[in-house]
C-alpha cells in the first residue's frame, strides 16, 4: 500500500517535470507566463495553451458537511481544479461544530479551511490563519475582486487591516430564509394566503380542524428560527444595525416587537399549531412532516422549496409565500444577498504558493466560469448561443450533489446564473419575489478587535444562554408572559448594555473607515 503510493508520487513527479520540460521548450513563443502577477488582468482569460504547467501540489481542505450534498472525492470540481492549476484538493469534513477549533488546537492543520468571519477573526489574531492582506500581490484576481466589491472586503477585514479569510460571493440569494406553503391544500379548502401573523394563526387553526393530527406551521432551527421571524416584527433578536436609526446598534430582544413575536409563538404552541417538540426537530424530522401532510406552512432556505417539491407526490406542491406582518408596518425576511462563509489559509501551511494560487484561481474570471458551469461537452452544451446544462442535471442541487459545483470552498466568486438556469418557473418566481422583502440591514455584528472581544466574551456567552432558555420557556409556557419585564431586567443585569456599547464602538469605527 505504502510502497504503491510512493511509486505513484514519484511517477507523478516525473510526469510533472516532463510536462514542465516540454512546455518550457515550447515556451519560446515569447509568452511570459512565469509570474501571473506581472500581467494580472490578461493572463487568466487565455486558452488552455498555457505554456508552462504550474508546479504540482496537494492541498488539504477542511469544510463543513452538508446532508443534501455530501462531499465525494471524485467530484468534477476537484478534477477541473487539478486540470487548471495542477493542485490536488483533498477534502476533509467537519464532524460537528467543534471540528474547526479542534483542528486548530491539535496542531495538525489542513492547508485551507472554510470559516465564518467570526471564527476567522477569533483564531486569526491568535496566529492560526495567514494574514492574506500581505499576499494580495500574489493574488491579482482576489485583489481585483475585492476592489470591485468593497462591501465584501469590508466585512472580511479586521480592525487592524488584516484579512484572515476571503469571503465567498455570488450565491447569497441561496441563503434567503423564506416562508412557503402547500398551495394545493390551500386551494382545496379555499384558504387565503395569510398576510399577517394574525391570519397565519387563523389559517393554522382552520387547518388544525381539518387535519387534527397535523401541526399546520413548523420550523426546524429551534430558538434560532426567531432570527428569521424577527424581520416580520421589525428586528433581529440579537445586536444589529438599526434600520430605523442607521449607525446605531440595536438589541432586538428588548424591542416591543420581539415580545409580540414570542406571544404569538406561545399561542401557537399552546394550541398545538406548531410541533410540540420544536426544540429538538432536525432536518429529517422536518422533511418527514412536510412530506407526509403534517405541516402546511413553514420557513426554510429558499432552495428547500424545490428540493421538497421533487419529493412530494400526488399533486402535493409547495409555493413561496410573502412574509406575514407581525408588528410595525412592513414585513421582511432576513437580508441575505451576501455570503457569510469564507476560506482561510493555515499559518502553518507548507504549500503557501499553492494555497495562494488556488485562491487566486477560484476568484479569477476563468475559475468563476469553470467552477460555476463546468466544461462544454462535459456538463453543458451550447444551444442557440446559450449555455444549457446536459439533461442529466435536472435541478440546481444536482450541480452540487453530482459535480460539487457551488459547494464549500469549491468556488470563490460564483455565477448564480448557472444555478438559476436549472430552476423551474416556481423557483424563479420564489427568487424574484423573495428579493423584494429583504430587511434593510444585515444580521451581523461589526468586527471587534481582539481586546474588545475578550472583554465581552463571557458576558455574551451568559447572555446567549439566558436569552435562549428564557425565550424557550416563554414559548412553551413554563414562564408566564407576565414575567417579561423581569426577563428584560435580567438581560441588563448580565451586562447587555456593555455588549451594545462595544458593538457601537466597532460600528462607528467601521463607518469611519468607509468614509
Amino acid at each position, binding site marked *: 500500500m505504502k510502497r504503491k503510493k510512493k511509486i505513484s508520487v514519484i511517477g507523478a513527479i516525473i510526469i510533472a517535470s516532463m510536462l514542465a520540460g516540454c512546455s518550457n521548450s515550447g515556451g519560446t513563443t515569447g509568452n511570459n507566463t512565469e509570474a501571473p502577477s506581472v500581467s494580472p488582468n490578461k493572463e487568466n482569460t487565455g486558452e488552455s495553451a498555457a505554456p508552462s504547467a504550474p508546479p504540482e501540489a496537494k492541498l488539504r481542505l477542511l469544510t463543513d458537511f452538508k446532508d443534501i450534498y455530501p462531499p465525494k472525492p471524485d467530484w468534477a470540481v476537484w478534477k477541473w481544479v487539478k486540470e487548471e492549476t495542477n493542485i490536488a484538493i483533498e477534502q476533509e469534513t467537519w464532524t460537528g*461544530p*467543534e471540528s474547526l*477549533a*479542534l483542528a*486548530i*488546537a491539535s496542531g495538525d492543520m489542513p492547508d485551507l479551511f472554510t470559516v465564518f468571519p467570526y471564527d476567522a477573526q*477569533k*483564531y486569526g489574531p*491568535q*496566529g*492560526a490563519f495567514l494574514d492574506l492582506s500581505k499576499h494580495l500581490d500574489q493574488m491579482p484576481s482576489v485583489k481585483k475582486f475585492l476592489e470591485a466589491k468593497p462591501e465584501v472586503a469590508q466585512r472580511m477585514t479586521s480592525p487592524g487591516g488584516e484579512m484572515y479569510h476571503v469571503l465567498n460571493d455570488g450565491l447569497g440569494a441561496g441563503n434567503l430564509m423564506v416562508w412557503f406553503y402547500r398551495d394545493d391544500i390551500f386551494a382545496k379548502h379555499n384558504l387565503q394566503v395569510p398576510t399577517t401573523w394574525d391570519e397565519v394563526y387563523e389559517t393554522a387553526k382552520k387547518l388544525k380542524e381539518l387535519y387534527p393530527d397535523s*401541526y399546520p406551521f413548523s420550523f426546524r432551527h*429551534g*430558538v434560532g428560527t426567531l432570527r428569521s421571524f424577527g424581520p416580520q416584527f421589525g428586528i433581529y433578536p440579537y445586536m444589529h444595525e438599526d434600520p430605523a436609526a442607521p449607525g446605531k446598534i440595536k438589541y432586538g430582544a428588548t424591542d416591543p416587537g420581539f415580545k409580540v413575536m414570542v406571544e404569538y409563538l406561545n399561542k401557537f404552541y399552546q394550541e398545538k399549531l406548531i*410541533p*410540540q*417538540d420544536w*426544540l*429538538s426537530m432536525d432536518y429529517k424530522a422536518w422533511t418527514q412532516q412536510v412530506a407526509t401532510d403534517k405541516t402546511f406552512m413553514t420557513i426554510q432556505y429558499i432552495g428547500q422549496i424545490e428540493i421538497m417539491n421533487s419529493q412530494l407526490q400526488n399533486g402535493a406542491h409547495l409555493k413561496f409565500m410573502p412574509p406575514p406582518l407581525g408588528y410595525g408596518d412592513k414585513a421582511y425576511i432576513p437580508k441575505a444577498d451576501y455570503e457569510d462563509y469564507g476560506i482561510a489559509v493555515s*499559518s502553518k501551511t507548507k504549500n503557501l504558493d499553492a494555497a495562494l494560487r488556488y485562491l487566486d484561481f477560484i476568484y479569477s474570471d476563468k475559475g468563476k466560469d469553470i467552477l460555476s458551469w463546468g466544461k462544454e461537452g462535459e456538463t453543458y452544451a451550447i444551444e442557440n448561443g446559450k449555455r444549457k446544462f446536459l439533461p442529466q442535471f435536472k435541478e440546481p442541487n444536482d450541480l452540487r450533489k453530482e459535480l460539487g459545483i457551488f459547494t464549500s470552498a469549491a468556488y470563490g466568486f460564483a455565477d448564480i446564473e448557472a444555478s438559476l438556469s436549472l430552476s423551474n418557473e416556481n423557483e424563479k418566481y420564489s427568487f424574484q419575489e423573495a428579493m423584494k422583502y429583504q430587511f434593510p440591514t444585515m444580521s451581523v455584528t461589526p468586527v471587534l478587535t481582539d481586546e474588545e472581544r475578550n472583554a465581552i*466574551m*463571557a458576558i455574551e*456567552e*451568559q447572555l446567549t*444562554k439566558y436569552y*435562549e*432558555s428564557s*425565550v*424557550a*420557556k416563554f414559548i*412553551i409556557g*413554563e414562564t408566564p408572559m407576565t414575567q417579561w419585564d423581569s426577563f428584560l431586567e435580567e438581560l441588563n443585569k*448580565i451586562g447587555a448594555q456593555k455588549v451594545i456599547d462595544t458593538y457601537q464602538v466597532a460600528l462607528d469605527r467601521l463607518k469611519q473607515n468607509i468614509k
Partner: protein
Amino acid sequence: MKSPSIAKQLKRDRAFVLMFAPVLLYFILFKYVPMFGIVISFMDYNLFKGITGSEWVGFKYYAQFFENRDAFVIIKNTVLLGAYKLLFGFPAPIVLALLLNELRHAIFKRFVQTVSYLPHFLSNVVVASMLIMLLSPSTGWVNRIIEGLGFPAISFLQESEWFRSIYVLSEIWQQVGWGSILYLAAITTIDPQLYEAARMDGAGRWKQTLHVTLPGIAATVVIMFILQIGHALEIGFEKVFLLSNAATYDTSDVIATYVYRVGILQGGFSYATAIDLFMGVIGFLLVYATNQLSRRLGETSLW
C-alpha cells in the same frame, strides 16, 4: 533477612516486569504526561505561542469562573446529577445481582443476565436518539400510553424538571446489568458451608441473603462505592449534551457541557482547563474523604 537489591529483584521478576511495562507506559503517556497541560489554566494560553510563550496570569480564570452568575447553577447541576446517579444507580446492580443469585433456573438466569447487560454496549448517541423518539410528545409511545390512560402528553425533554429523572433512569438501564457481573462474581466466592450452616439454624432465603450473601460481598461493595464516588462528578458529556436543549438549561447545563461551549466552541482553552481542574480537585477530595471514613468504620479501604 536482607531483601535482594532492586536490580536483582528486577532480574528475577523480569517476566512480570515485561508484562507490566505496557500498562505503565499507557499510564505515563495518557494519564501523567497530559497532566502538564493543566498549567495552561494559570496562563493566557495562546495556541501558537505555546506553553513557553504564553503569559502567566495566576488565578485569573478561576476568579472569572466564580464571578460567573451561572457558576453556582452549573456546579449544582453537576453535583446533583452525580449524587442521584450514585444514590439510585449504585444500589441497582447489587439488588439485581442478589435477585439473579436467587434464580435457580440456569438458562433463564443466563438469558436475563445477557439481556440486562446488552445496553452497556450501546453508544450514548444511540441511547439519546432512542430516548428522543420514545419520549416525543407527538409520536413517542411513552406518551401514547400516557394519553391512552387519559392524561395529557408530557414534553419530557422540554421540561427541565424531568431532565434528571430521565438521565438517571436511562443511566441505570444502561449500566445495571454490566455492574451486576462484578457482584455476581463476588457472590460465587462465598463459602457454601455458610449457607448450609444458616439453613441448619433455620434461616430462610431472605435471612440467608441478609446474613450471609450481603456480608459476604460487603468488602466489594465498599471498594466499588469509593471508586464510584470518584466518578460521581464525571457526568458523561455526550448524553447530557444530546438530551439537553435551550428549555432545560436550568437542570441540564453541567460542567462538561459548559466547558465544551466556552472551551472548545469559543476557544477559551485556559478558562475551560481551570474549571475542569477545579472539578478534578473536588472529585479527589471526595474520594479521599470517603476512603478515610471507610477506614475508620471498618477495615476496607483503597489505601
